[in-house]
């Protein structure tokens, strides 16, 4: 049997602190590449200009050490914890401490209310929204994906009928984009979950947003569906910021799971042109 590896709470906290700041100030390379390609290809002058402003925004954020977007989001933290890792200390407390420090040190906005109805701000952007998976091995991979509310609020889930089939899924995704309009800051990026249970389907949609835009679904059926949805969304003409143009969506990622014979859940986690994620491996 292989030896167990030790990780301390302090190591987790330090990593999360750094990831919160990095994620909010540097766009992932695949998202930047998709934006650059869209700007180069955009035929509509106002849209091309608007995409150029988004590129300029990224440069200013780097130069001035400013967050790319003022909504530095809820700190969604995904942990893939190796089964041979022994943690010294409390993982959840360590992550929250990292969020607390990162949002303070990085001059990031504190956007979390302690209670959904009584709305008092927690003041330090905790708690983190943590998803933990146990995986084989002796390493721990942490991804921080700050999620803004402009797009999160436009996300939807439907329990379709099996008879609705793939046509029903496509119609639901396209209707979600149409209803969202300019609220989620197009060009958008879509994470789509299909199948599973009610709760798993929503989690799948969020998980899909972690996949780089240049990596299609490994299943050719779903890769084709991703391409088809992307083309259909861009044919709407909504354009960047909803001002009109060819670039409404930069990417669609679909994740799927087995489901019940009577179910066809579909969830769309809407995200924006500032789809942020930063990863560290300990």
């Amino acid at each position: 049997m292989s030896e167990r590896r030790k990780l301390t709470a302090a190591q987790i906290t330090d990593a999360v602190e750094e990831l919160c700041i990095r994620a909010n100030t540097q766009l992932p390379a695949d998202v930047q590449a998709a934006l650059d390609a869209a700007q180069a290809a955009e035929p509509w002058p106002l849209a091309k200009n608007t995409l150029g402003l988004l590129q300029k925004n990224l440069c200013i954020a780097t130069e001035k050490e400013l967050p790319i977007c003022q909504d530095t989001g809820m700190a969604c933290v995904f942990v893939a914890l190796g089964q041979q890792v022994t943690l010294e200390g409390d993982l959840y407390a360590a992550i929250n401490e990292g969020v607390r420090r990162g949002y303070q040190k990085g001059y990031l906005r504190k956007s979390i209310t302690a209670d959904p109805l009584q709305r008092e701000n927690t003041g330090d952007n905790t708690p983190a929204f943590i998803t933990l998976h146990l995986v084989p091995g002796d390493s721990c991979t942490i991804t921080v994906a700050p999620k803004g509310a402009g797009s999160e609020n436009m996300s939807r889930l439907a329990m379709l009928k099996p008879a609705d089939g793939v046509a029903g899924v496509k119609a639901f995704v396209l209707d979600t984009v149409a209803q969202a309009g300019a609220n989620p800051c197009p060009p958008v990026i879509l994470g789509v979950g299909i199948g599973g249970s009610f709760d798993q389907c929503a989690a799948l949609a969020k998980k899909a947003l972690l996949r780089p835009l240049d990596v299609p679904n490994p299943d050719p059926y779903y890769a084709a569906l991703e391409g088809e949805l992307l083309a259909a969304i861009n044919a709407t003409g909504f354009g960047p910021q909803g001002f009109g143009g060819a670039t409404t969506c930069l990417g669609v990622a679909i994740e799927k799971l087995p489901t019940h014979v009577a179910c066809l859940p579909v969830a769309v986690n809407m995200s924006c042109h500032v789809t942020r994620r930063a990863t560290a491996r300990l």
Partner: protein
Amino acid sequence: MEYSLQTPLTTAALAPLKAGDTVLLSGVVYTARDAAHARMAALLDEGKPLPFALAGAAIYYVGPTPERPGCAIGAAGPTTAGRMDSFTPRLLGLGLAAMIGKGKRSDAVKAAVVQNGAVYLGAIGGAGALMAGSVKSCEIVAWPDLGCEAVRKLVVENMPLTVLLDAHGGDLYAAGPAAYLQSLQKAAK
């Protein structure tokens, strides 16, 4: 068309604006979003004065990030305006001249914009670092307990904005995509 405007804004100055025009806005802009709007509504219900005069004013729907030492403001892009829709017609009736945000508004807001000769201006959503560049100073003038949602008085210079709803019923969210799609049809012929 591109217009340079200075606050306070008059209906005469706003009248020529058409959806899709560019505005470079200078002067004083007040920030207010969800929680501040709820408190302003409560003050109006009680017959009390608001933290700032609405006549000719511009409200920017924004919750900036904390400023670094030596900077006027942090990242400061627009938030979704539709969340303020239920409060907006009343404020427009009291003289609010311009709103700055992103996203579609309700029919009631559109009607109130026309009725009051006001304007709804779009800032680039998700471009918080870019939008911060036109903010010269920032001071909290009400409800510091609201944190990023506190009411701030911003002095802005040539803030780059796009007319989304004009005083004549023009709506860029309808007209912009339609014009683009029409250009494709023409090209296909």
